[in-house]
């Protein structure tokens, strides 16, 4: 029997070095014209196997006992709500779940927890759900990962879904990580692509890593449900169809599932957020080029006329011009709006990894060599103190038409 792990077949390796270039972990070197893998650095990601044209790299994955997975059906979506307002990402997921469910010939099920939420259930059916499982109880008025995790794990055991999706939000990520460990199944974070491999009846999950410099496709072959959190604004929400019919199931709250070890005390909404960064279609961000805190009002004004959220580079946050909650980038938030407007941001890699998945990037900067222009769809090389007011004026003038 072959050992588990990775191996280079010396007879097949021609020393072409393709694998060395492909290795994200610098774990391969050429010794005597043959690739040699440093097992201390190798994470068995398979990037080398993918590029090898000679079939010289073998990754021996452990044989997993095939369990009977056929009893798992349906595509579940966790419906995120706060103060009974359903998060837009949940509607986006219902839209995606429809396509997945059609490929699998299965149903879309919305899982909806909260207090006094029954009247919202039809809305979920209109947006694509075939069935809504509701747990409506005043004890679920406020989210805690422990209790919500217990309740949903229980429902998963009971109904056995094949796929489980949640938004890659602070709530979604805190919650589903617990569920996946509890019921022992695979979870893929922050997916930007979901497809069904029909032949093997598997969910193929695509996600960025290394700040979007690498994309990985991940599957969960032997455990169910296949769980994923999905980025905002990537999947398409369906138009509401009030003629759609669906089933609403009310599940009682089993008191034993309440976890009293964490207790919600308060939620303080930050008034500064007229538009929520992760929710926004457009983000206007300011950086060091603004020069002074009072100049941030230019960015705010531009955001205002566009109905956009306000972001910032680390430099602007560290200078105390704007709170940390607005920071976009490696040590802040990752965003992917339809339009990202970077004002006076040079575009250090730490900033780029937080926003380079945006659909359209617009840069305004006086330095023509600023790295931000390399990834911008549109750019203006110029003085932002002149350019931004002109742009604001222009947008205002055209608003009527």
């Amino acid at each position, binding site marked *: 029997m072959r050992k588990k792990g990775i191996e280079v077949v010396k007879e097949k390796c021609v020393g072409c070095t393709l694998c060395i270039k492909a290795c994200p972990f610098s774990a391969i070197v050429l010794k005597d014209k043959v690739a040699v893998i440093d097992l201390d650095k190798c994470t068995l990601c398979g990037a080398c196997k993918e590029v090898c044209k000679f079939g010289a790299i073998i990754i021996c994955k452990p044989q997993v006992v095939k369990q009977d997975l056929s009893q798992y059906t349906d595509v579940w979506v966790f419906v995120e709500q706060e103060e009974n307002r359903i998060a837009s990402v949940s509607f986006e997921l219902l839209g995606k779940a429809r396509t997945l469910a059609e490929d699998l010939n299965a149903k879309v099920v919305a899982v909806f927890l909260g207090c006094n939420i029954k009247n919202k259930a039809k809305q979920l059916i209109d947006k694509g759900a075939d069935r809504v499982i509701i747990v409506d109880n005043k004890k679920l008025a406020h989210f805690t990962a422990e209790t919500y995790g217990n309740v949903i794990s229980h429902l998963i055991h009971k109904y056995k879904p094949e796929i489980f999706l949640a938004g890659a939000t602070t709530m979604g990520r805190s919650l589903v990580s617990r569920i996946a460990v509890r019921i022992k199944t695979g979870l*893929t974070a922050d997916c930007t692509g979901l497809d069904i491999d029909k032949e093997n009846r598997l969910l193929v999950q695509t996600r960025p890593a290394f700040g979007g410099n690498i*994309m*990985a496709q991940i599957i969960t072959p032997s455990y169910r449900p296949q769980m994923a959190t999905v980025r905002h604004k990537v999947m398409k929400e369906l138009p509401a169809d009030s003629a759609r019919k669906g089933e609403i199931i009310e599940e009682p709250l089993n008191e034993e599932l309440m976890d009293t*070890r964490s207790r919600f005390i308060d*939620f303080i909404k930050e008034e500064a957020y007229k538009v929520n960064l992760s929710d926004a279609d457009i983000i206007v961000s300011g950086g060091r080029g603004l020069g002074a805190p009072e100049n941030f009002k230019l960015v705010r004004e531009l955001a205002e006329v566009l109905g956009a959220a306000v972001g910032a580079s680390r430099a602007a946050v560290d200078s105390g011009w704007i709170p940390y909650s607005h920071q976009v980038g490696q040590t802040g938030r990752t965003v992917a709006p339809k339009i990202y407007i970077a004002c006076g941001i040079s575009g250090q890699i730490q900033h780029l990894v937080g926003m380079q998945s945006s659909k359209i990037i617009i840069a305004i900067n006086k330095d023509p060599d600023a790295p931000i222009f390399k990834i911008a769809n*549109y750019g203006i090389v110029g003085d932002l103190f002149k350019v931004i007011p002109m742009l604001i004026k222009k947008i205002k003038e055209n608003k009527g038409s």
Partner: protein
Amino acid sequence: MNIVVCIKQVPETTEVKINPETNTLIREGVSSIINPFDMYAIEEAVRLKEKYTGTTTVITMGPPQADSALREALSLGIDEAIHLSDRAFAGSDTWATSLVLAKAIERLKNVDLVICGKQASDGDTAQVGPGIATHLNWPQATYVRKIDKIDLDNKKAIFERLLEDGYEVLEVDLPCLITVVKEINVPRMPSLRGKMKAKKQSIPVWGKGELGLKDEEVGLEGSPTQVVKIFTPPPRESGMIFDGEAHEAVDKLFGELRKHLL
């Protein structure tokens, strides 16, 4: 108060570049650093120790070279370090990784608080922290921006969690696990004394044997997810740069912007 900090060694992202010809990552000479978010976890642990006394321990799961990350944490004021390293751990996904870390925390005994960074800069999953808490059957507080109160007598703590549109105040029983965001503190620089101490300190290495783990519970076999393919995304198309007179440039940009606003 006994605190454990979980850290990860990651490539220094600033140096990750794409080779424009092969469109692959250039990783030659890329240095490794402690995951940026973990620096705030380390600092918070040191501050809590200064306030409440007790022991701080840093742990990491990683290959032999992750030793340098542990030593850096020691130089920043952490008391002890444990290196979780075993060939069998290679290929672990977040499920298996959080199991290994949880087993180490169990073995350390009498831990009151575990602190992790919000997420790692290479994987960006934010799954390992809550995963550890679940393996331990502990409560959690993720995205913590401030520790309001720690009441060791009654085994309770109050945290502020940074959410998308504000912050939540949450009371959690100890022991618990928290993940922290940048806003929580400003990390200090290592002291010369700290560096000297870190250099000499012995760091135990725990493998699957010490942690009581079987082969099939870790690595590829213990991981429910499987990476089937890794590829570089298509590069962004080169853009239109307007560098003429401001009025003209704004007109042109607005013309383009308008198409996308519709």
